[in-house]
């Protein structure tokens, strides 16, 4: 065999043609046969005729061979396809590595955008999206009583009263199971350090209603509930441990079931341990104890239970809600003293758990998406700039026969490589970042499901998805624009501003305007949130938290079963604390300001007709001891504070705050007058003093009426010691704890915090949102400034010739500056305009997060554009000043 001539081989370069090959082969065979026959003596025509006859069904042969050939062709095409993708990848990486500056900036920018988005998504996923840890959580609702209009039920205390609860259960048809619980701190003693634990006193069917199984042992049954124990809320003598407590206090002892523990001095047998992720409504208590409420001993007092129920299949929350409203009306008629004005709502559990944070998280998600968009726009702009620089290379490739599609594919590969690299950087940053954020949050911040925030498979999948999307997003436009066949213009000299540059220019300018608009929106949002936070911080809490230390304890168990025992403790403890160096005043209070939810007590004047049921004013009742008001810095407005006159045998003395005074005694002096409150029997007392308003429950709401009792006359189990010092309060922490230890070694101190920490926690969520959004906004501003700088610099290089001419014709440096900066500012103003319109339209979405400012707050809307314009001015000035300095001669010559 001799090889084919070269020219023939080249024909195959244009693509092999299987059917032509088959034709050729068969034709050759035929001609050989004819030759053979002719050699045997036949004439040419006869030979040909016979050969064709012998050949048989040519068509079928042709078809079969064509099929085989085509199959083989497809296979080789596919292999080639993979090969070319691999080629593209290698080429992309090499090209990117050749311009390391560009590549690094692009990757960092993308890393920023993708990282921030991933971090926020991690939080959003954990808090809002992941399942709630109960079986079929969509069927669970919280039954909550409310008065007047419902308002934001996710904020409401979720309160229900035992009396009503039993009626709900017997009268309702919507639920397959109803349960309830209340959570109180109790002390664990006996086997180790005394420790305060959070105990959920729950009805026996709580676990079955939630549909969960214990990890070890068993959970409560009806039998555990019916045996009364001595005093306290708990029934029976059993307890179920939480996983965390089991690990931390008992070292994960596998034989824990059957052991006894001392809760508030009462021995209880551990019958089970729950799994590690179990939570009730987002609470993670340490221990469960059966709740001792049966229809026989129900009290009407206090709506302190959290009630939850599982809907029957086919019943929706709305239907259940209607039924409950009807039942509530019936109960209103049946027990008017207690139920007038009260109704019941069925709130889906998910709503209750996450409802409060959802708006903030969604805003953050929106903000971070804007940031990502800005990052993409930046990189797209960078790519456009690069494409212009590579115009010649592109033109050459096109002229050598590369198709546009191939070129676009290769450019997109570059974009994808960039975005994947950026995604990797971003993911790492996000992992570290979320960990840092979560660790830096104060321990009792109210972000639900905080401990489930972690980067896992879902987050990784999400990151991959947005990485690829981002890559396509910012890569497509530059790829399409760069691969436009414009051979003539490109092959000409590149340095003079060519026409191919102008549409790119317009594109880049458009992108910058978009960037500025987006950055403005983020800045406005951040500005509004920061102003809200400022307003929140400026709220007068009513106390002076500087230099104040607090310790929390709970006086539970047999040893503090009597008022005498409790008073005895205070009698020992307070003087000991008073004696510590630097201490100015020591007091106690049952609940610290800004820490508890409303408890729905009432109080009214005995000398006036009692208020109509349903219109009783709601009052916070606090029990104070020692020199509480002095320690907390609450001013005395009239009368006196509690003193030795108010001992246990004396007539009940009350101190009220100004809000209560205004409410019950408008225009009069309340000192000396009388008030009553039910507990549940009516307690009557004399007002001995009026103090300043304190925000007892929340920073956001105005202070509600409050009534104070003296510990000497009326004790409580919840105890917060408040110590005012001259120096640093934390320095006193050790000594204070020691004093408590001395007074009672078995009494655990639950938490020691400064009052300033307590106040800060109340505003923690607002602080966090505004800081995060502020960070995003600053980053966005930076990115937009860089983008603007890039575009102005690009315009300068494009117009170098023109500038040279102007200077030669006598333009001053100032003229040039004004020209260039003017262009930059024009773009900025366009962006600001668009951004302001969008911000005005969308800022209403933030309303639920704002405090003290409106969604169209003038200060914010004026300051932000000014700041933005200022930064833009600098960004435009830098390249402009370089242009103005350029030598006209060299510019013209280039």
């Amino acid at each position, binding site marked *: 065999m001799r090889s084919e001539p070269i020219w023939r081989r080249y024909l195959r370069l244009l693509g092999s043609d299987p059917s032509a090959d088959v034709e*050729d082969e068969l034709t*050759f065979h035929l001609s050989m046969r004819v030759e053979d026959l002719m050699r045997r003596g036949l004439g040419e025509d006869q030979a040909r005729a016979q050969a064709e006859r012998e050949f048989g069904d040519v068509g079928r042969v042709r078809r079969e061979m064509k099929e*085989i050939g085509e199959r083989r062709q497809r296979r080789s095409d596919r292999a080639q396809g993979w090969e070319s993708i691999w080629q593209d990848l290698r080429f992309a990486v090499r090209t990117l590595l050749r311009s390391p500056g560009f590549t690094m900036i692009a990757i960092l920018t993308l890393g920023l955008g993708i990282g921030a988005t991933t971090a926020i998504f991690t939080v959003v996923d954990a808090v809002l999206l992941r399942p709630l840890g109960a079986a079929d959580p969509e069927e669970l609702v919280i039954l909550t009583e409310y008065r007047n209009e419902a308002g934001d039920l996710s904020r409401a205390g979720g309160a229900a009263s035992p009396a009503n609860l039993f009626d709900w259960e017997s009268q309702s048809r919507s639920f397959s199971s109803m349960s309830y619980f209340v959570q109180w701190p109790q002390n664990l003693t006996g086997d180790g350090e005394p420790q305060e634990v959070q105990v959920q006193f729950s009805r026996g069917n709580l676990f079955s209603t939630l549909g969960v199984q214990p990890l070890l042992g068993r959970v409560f049954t009806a039998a555990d509930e019916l045996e009364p124990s001595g005093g306290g809320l708990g029934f029976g003598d059993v307890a179920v441990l939480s996983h965390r407590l089991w690990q931390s206090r008992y070292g994960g002892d596998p034989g824990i079931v059957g052991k006894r523990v001392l809760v508030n001095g009462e021995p209880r047998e551990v019958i089970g341990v729950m799994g590690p992720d179990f939570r009730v409504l987002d609470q993670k208590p340490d221990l469960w104890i059966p709740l001792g409420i049966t229809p026989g001993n129900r009290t009407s007092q206090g709506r302190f239970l959290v009630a939850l129920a599982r809907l029957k299949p086919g019943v929706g929350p709305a239907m259940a809600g209607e039924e409950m409203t009807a039942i509530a009306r019936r109960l209103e008629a049946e027990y008017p003293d207690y139920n007038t004005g009260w109704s019941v709502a069925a709130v889906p559990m998910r709503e209750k758990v996450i409802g409060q944070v959802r708006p903030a998280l969604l805003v953050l998600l929106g903000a971070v998406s804007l940031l990502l968009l800005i990052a993409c726009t930046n990189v797209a702009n960078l790519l456009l700039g690069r494409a212009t620089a590579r115009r010649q290379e592109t033109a050459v490739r096109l002229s050598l026969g590369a198709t546009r599609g191939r070129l676009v594919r290769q450019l997109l590969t570059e974009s994808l490589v960039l975005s994947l690299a950026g995604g990797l950087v971003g993911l790492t940053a996000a992992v570290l970042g979320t960990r840092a954020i979560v660790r830096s949050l104060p321990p009792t911040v109210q972000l639900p499901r905080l401990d489930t925030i972690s980067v896992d498979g879902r987050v990784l999948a999400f990151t991959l998805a947005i990485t690829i999307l981002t890559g396509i997003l910012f890569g497509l436009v530059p790829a399409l624009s760069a691969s436009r066949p414009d051979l003539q213009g490109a092959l000409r000299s590149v340095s003079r501003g060519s026409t191919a540059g102008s549409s790119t220019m317009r594109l880049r300018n458009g992108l910058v305007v978009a960037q500025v608009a987006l950055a403005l929106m983020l800045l406005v949002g951040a500005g509004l949130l920061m102003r809200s936070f400022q307003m929140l911080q400026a709220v007068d809490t009513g106390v002076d938290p500087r230099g104040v230390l607090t310790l929390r304890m709970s006086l539970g168990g047999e040893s503090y079963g009597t008022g005498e025992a409790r008073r005895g403790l205070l009698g020992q403890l307070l003087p000991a604390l008073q004696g510590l160096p630097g201490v100015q005043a020591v007091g106690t209070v049952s609940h610290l300001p800004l820490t508890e939810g409303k408890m729905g007590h009432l109080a009214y004047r005995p000398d006036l007709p009692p208020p109509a049921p349903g219109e009783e004013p709601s009052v916070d009742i606090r029990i104070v001891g020692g020199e509480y008001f002095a320690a907390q810095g609450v001013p005395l407005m009239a009368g006196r504070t509690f003193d030795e006159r108010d001992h246990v045998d004396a007539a009940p003395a009350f101190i009220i705050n100004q809000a209560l005074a205004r409410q019950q005694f408008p225009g009069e002096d309340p000192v000396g007058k009388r008030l009553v409150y039910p507990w549940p029997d009516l307690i009557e007392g004399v007002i001995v003093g009026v103090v300043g308003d304190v925000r007892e429950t929340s920073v956001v709401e105005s202070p509600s009426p409050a009534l104070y009792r003296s510990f000497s006359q009326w004790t409580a189990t919840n105890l917060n010691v408040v110590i005012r010092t001259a120096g640093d309060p934390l320095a006193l922490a050790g000594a204070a704890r020691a004093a408590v230890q001395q007074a009672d070694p078995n009494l655990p101190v639950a938490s020691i915090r400064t009052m300033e920490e307590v106040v800060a926690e109340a505003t923690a969520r607002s602080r966090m949102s505004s800081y995060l959004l502020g960070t995003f906004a600053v980053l966005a501003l930076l990115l937009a400034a860089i983008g603007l700088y890039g575009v102005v610099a690009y315009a300068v290089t494009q117009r170098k010739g023109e500038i040279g001419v102007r200077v030669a014709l006598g333009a001053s440096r100032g003229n040039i500056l004004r020209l260039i900066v003017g262009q930059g500012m024009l773009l900025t103003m366009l962006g600001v305009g668009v951004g302001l319109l969008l911000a005005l339209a969308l800022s209403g979405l933030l309303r639920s997060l704002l405090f003290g400012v409106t969604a169209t707050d003038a200060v914010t809307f004026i300051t932000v554009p000014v700041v933005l314009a200022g930064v833009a001015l600098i960004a435009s000035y830098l390249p402009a000043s370089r242009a103005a300095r350029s030598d006209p001669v060299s510019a013209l010559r280039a």
Partner: protein
Amino acid sequence: MPRNIIESVQGTLDFLILKTLSWGQMHGYAVARWIFDNSSEELQIEEGTLYPALHRLEDRGWIEAEWGLSENNRRAKFYRLTASGRQELTERVSSWHRFTSAVNRVLAAVPEGV
């Protein structure tokens, strides 16, 4: 062992082609001529069977093809055996010998007592 007559015929043809090509590179017509001549003109392979067989064998990777010029300067497709083809050939040869000797043994067998 071939399972039906068509398979066995096809298999045999493939086998013969492989053997033919083991002598060197040939184009399709030459393969047919070789088999015809060396079977004492008993086995004449039709083009309709030959070329599909050649392409099948090429698909399986046992032979590979190259375009070249024939003795009379015509463009033709030449085939040659690949390494895996050579291996396949060896296996088939031994398999064929086993088959034929088995058949011959049965043919020569005589029942007992005759």
